[in-house]
């Protein structure tokens, strides 16, 4: 599998690690909503089809990438730097 890192260009999958399901929102750090924290830590959508994922180019520039990948065909549809595509934490 090849992932095209926005900085490094196309690289072999062995340089990347899968980190997380993407598109999730971390509760505000001060939130005491136990259910919201539980959902954040444990609940996943696990889509069959187009799926947003966070990968790290750990064997390259070490950036985290937001990868849109089809979990059925393994096709990668889009890759952006996670840093540049918005916060994943709820504003206070």
């Amino acid at each position, binding site marked *: *599998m090849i992932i095209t890192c926005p900085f490094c260009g196309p690289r072999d*999958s062995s340089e990347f*690690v899968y980190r997380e399901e993407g598109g999730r929102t971390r509760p505000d750090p*001060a939130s005491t909503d136990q259910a919201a924290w539980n959902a954040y*830590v444990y609940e996943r959508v696990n889509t069959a089809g187009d799926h947003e994922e966070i990968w790290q180019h750990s064997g390259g520039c070490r950036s*985290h990438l937001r990868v849109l990948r089809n979990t059925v065909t393994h096709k990668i549809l889009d890759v952006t730097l996670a840093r540049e595509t918005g916060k994943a934490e709820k504003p206070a």
Partner: protein
Amino acid sequence: MSPRRATSGGLIDRSRSIRFTFDGQEFTGHPGDTLASALLANGVTLLGRSFKYHRPRGVLAAGVDEPNALVTILRGEAREPNIQATMLEIYDGLKVVSQNRFPSLGMDVGAVNQLGGKVLGAGFYYKTFMGPVIGPLKGTRFWMFCEHFIRRAAGLGKAGTMADPSRYERMNAFCDVLVVGSGPAGLMAAKAAAESGQRVILAEQDARLGGSANWCDETIDGQPAGDWAAATVRELARMSNVRVLPRTSVWGYYDGNTIAALERVTDHKASPRRGEPRQRHWTIRVGKVVLATGAFERPLVFPGNDRPGVMLASAAERYAAEYGVLPGEKIAVLTNNDGAYRSALALREAGCHIVAIIDVRADISQPARATAVRTGAEILTGRAVTATEGGKKLHCIKVQAFDAATGQISGDPRSIDVDCLLMSGGWSPVINLASQAGAKAEWNERLQAFLPPKDADGWIGAGGFNGTFSLDAALSEGFAAGGGTDAGLLPATSSVDLDIAPAGVFEITGKGKAFVDFQHDVTSEDVRLAHREGFQSVEHLKRYTTLGMATDQGKTSNVPGLAIMANALGKQIPEVGTTRFRPPFAPVTIGALAAERYGEIRPERLTPMHDWHVENGATLYSAGLWHRPMIFGLPGETVEQAYVREARTTREAAGIADVSTLGKIAVQGPDAADFLDRVYTNMFSTLPVGKARYGLMLREDGLVLDDGTTWRLAEHDFLMTTTTANAGKVMQHLEYLLDVIWPDLKVTLTSVTDQWAGASIAGPRSRDILAACVTGTKVDNETLPFMGIVYGEIDGAPVMICRLSFSGELAYEVYSGAGHGTHVWEALIAAGKPFGLVPYGLEALGTMRIEKGHVTGAEIDGRVTARDLHLDWMLSKKKPFVGSMMMIREGLVAPDRLQLVGILSRDNIPLNGGAHIVEELDQDNPHGSIGHMTAACYSPVLGQYIGLALVKAGKSRHGQRAFISDPLRKRFGPIEIVSNHFYDPEGKRMHG
């Protein structure tokens, strides 16, 4: 009569001879020969015994599709089994032995298995040996009794037990166009792509490029096809944008057009050059793959079709044309298509006598008949071979009338004396790689074969792969696949007007074993048996009969097997469907996959002072990738004596340890303090510049991730330390938070583990030692209080010293640039000599931390909370931090959780990490674990064996007796549960 070498013809070099041995007997061949061609040239037809029935087997094919002729190569002490004789190039000194025979190939006692044919059918082992014991000769226990004998009798070659001394390597490559296969279509594709300036790799599994051009009798561009191919290859090899890879089988097609290939670099050489790998594993990232992999001719399934002397028509043609080997003197042909007529003619022209052409079809085409007439053979249409005779070597075939529509055999058999029977059951395009890439094969009625789909993402097909069998069309498809547009550039050819479209006949049923999968000894009757026993899906058929599961992966058996299954089910072949091909296309050595890691599994990570340790008697210990001193033993000391001495001396005088392996992360930027407050459970924004603090980090789920000290070097500049084992994990955790959760924070994280050499100097005399060698700063209690940091020099090298303690003694960590590490270390050793300083290793370090009750990775095992480790004092209530909400979940604050305790051995016998702790000792039936040991040692300060453990509600059990239960190491005995703080619980010594 025997096969023999023709006096002329073929692409071998008759001017030179190569000597090799087969089963100890010496033979000669010529450069350009494979083992198969060389043995045939010497009249050898018996090459091995079959998998299950030990039937004599010869050569069926001429290339990578060969199922029978598997041999074992002996290379010094190493042996490599199951090598196809058709793919093995001979070289001087090659030593080969045949397989699966005892005591010899000619006299094999295992051949009695043939008599038990009915019993040994598909599923025999399962039916006989699985399940409950019923009677004396059935069931699992019976299997255990018989297994030894069966394993000896069945199977392919034996693996060697000696280490393989070969060298393997990996290569990464990138190209615009990868052409797989160098037949006319592939060469044309490579040429077109190369001439348009693209980066091209051309991979050919055989030694000689050109594919069918090397054995067909056609011309390209006015010259023999083989000459055209050779000229084209030379032209390509000269181009800087082309890499030509002979002996390279492309075996895997993965996502993103990532291709795996195996190059046999020196397998054909008597003596490889220095540094040359035996094989090279290529990983190729490709823009467009051109699949020009050709097609395999299929055998026909009829009784006795496996007898040595029966071979594929195209293989015989190839032996004659490419190797100058006549596979027989008197040859008959059995076919269901016109293609075999061409093979017959080629062999006739090479000097063989074609006795008869037996065609299952009642009517044949005019060109076929004309060709047959030229061979001088008797033409027997509407007939089939229903038996072969001759023991280990074919000498006679039986021919009967055959109705291609019904499969009915009639009339009396007629015997025809032959020493070679060529068969052709039509052709199967080699779509394996396309199938790996996800392409769904489509059944083509005319060709009676599965073809690749027309549209593909990432690859394009050409030639035989597409089911295109005319030379003109193959060149034209190759040209287009390579991106060529001007058809005027295509060379002219002499085309042969023979259509390979076969009649839909795959099997001739009769008496006797008719093989579908030669390598796994699967007969047509096995396929029908599977059907009768209810296996209807092709996937189940495959697994039950093991059809297509041998090392040849069903290259010759796939379609015949499906056809017979379809017939049994009363369905059409496309309804039955085909299995998806999986990697590898051809066998791959494990060594090649390991490549540069073969023999040397992991890189060594060395500290700056490593060489000093080695020179000064350290016994090294691998901790992850790091190599760390375990002990600095004196002559005659045991490990325990050494670490006890080192720990005792440190506590009484001073000791020095290399702590360079601790993970070190530079946390820099205006938001660094804020960031640390978020990721540590305790506060770091309040830490003054020039001070360090012990910190604890949780995961998002509230369990402990890691601990360590973090030093504030400047307002915006922190140096975080992590445990050695968790350095990478902590870095990833922090990077994730910064990149994904808090991208607005201005913080840079950099691994500086390797920037710093760290020496921990501990013990009551440690301050005196520093005072004796550090310049530029004082080190007294006022200048350098507990957790303080100072900067100075030791013997001219800049150092940074932080006063912190893991051992519980007065202690300091002295950091210098890694390149100065040994220099500073040696200066400290010299300064410490008058004070009795000793170097100590991990064992003493561990001993002192156990005495002190400090935790490490053994306790921070991913399941413990801060409270479990009695670190709740570090949980700030003033701020949220990662894990702060999740750590208060019910289950994580329950009173009966495993908690950190100390353990005293009450029988004065050593304890072991991993041992269970129980309330009731029951050696015969160990049960009732209330926890486990995480660390153990002999404590010099307590004078007894102690340890740390995680025990259920451990804190409430202090002072209680329990037992150690360690059945694996047979260690049972009484213990006492105590506080984890064995030594100086008030910390007077380190604050002193």
